[in-house]
């Protein structure tokens, strides 16, 4: 029973993750796309935790979800915010 619940949860997370990635692909506003990227990274960190890799989960959460997002946002601030420009 517990295993089934967990399996369903993983499937739901997978769907969410891929949906986040597709969103990042179609958003025209780059800041939104970057937030979607951070969301995908956070889910990846959760996956690493579920796969019993706490070290990697920590690294992915701090690098992928926090630091990368900050660098992206700074770079977008220096350039154009909309994808079309």
């Amino acid at each position: 029973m517990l295993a089934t619940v967990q399996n369903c949860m993983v499937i739901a997370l997978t769907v969410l993750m891929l949906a986040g990635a597709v969103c990042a692909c179609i958003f025209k506003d780059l800041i939104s796309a970057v937030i979607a990227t951070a969301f995908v990274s956070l889910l990846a960190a959760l996956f690493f935790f579920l796969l019993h890799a706490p070290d990697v989960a920590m690294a992915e959460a701090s690098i992928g979800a926090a630091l990368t997002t900050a660098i992206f946002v700074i770079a977008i601030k220096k350039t154009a915010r909309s994808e079309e420009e």
Partner: protein
Amino acid sequence: MRSLIAVILLAVIGLGLALCLSDMPFGANHIATAEKAGRHYLEKAPQETGSANVVTAVVVTYRGFDTLGEVTVLFIAAIGLGMVLYRRKKQEGKPPQPASFVLQTGCCFLFPLILILGVYIFLHGHLTPGGGFQGGVIVASGFLLAYIGCADMKIRHRWFEATESLAGSAFVIAGMAGLAAGGSFLMNFMPKGNFNTLFSAGIIPIIYIAIGLKVGAELTGLIANLLERAE
């Protein structure tokens, strides 16, 4: 046309990956026999390295040479970013609008706590999850917060460059010391101490402190360089 070719290529790559993955079923015990590296690390790491966290043992001792390379990659990124964004004359951008009082106070209050968390994580790399990289990134994110939130915060690049340089050299020197102690490069030549205590695992904590300081300094410098680039 362009996206059609892209989709065909992607289909080929996806098919190839699917074929490969069907050959390695998820969750199978692929390291069942003792001569596999992963099994060896799990069985022997506590005795051979004295580290309770096997991932740390692999990162710092068994595959320590990779870690040296990885630190170098980050060093290259920090220096390369500084080089790409270099300009001859420092232009004074208009001073940024100071953040609101609440935000400033909050940032200045959180900053030391985040630093302490980062230092804790890289000090305990051999006991708990985490290590030099994770701790270093947390330290850097603390500086990022302070840099954005506290208006009077100025990052002194020279200090960070010096830390980075010293910590990197310390890593190489620790490796050389193993060579000089009659073993091989990056050998864990120090006493292992009591298992599962802070002062154990030989050179692992020393190297992780060096990595933590270096990663923290590099990422802080990297962010500061990007932020200071006048618009």
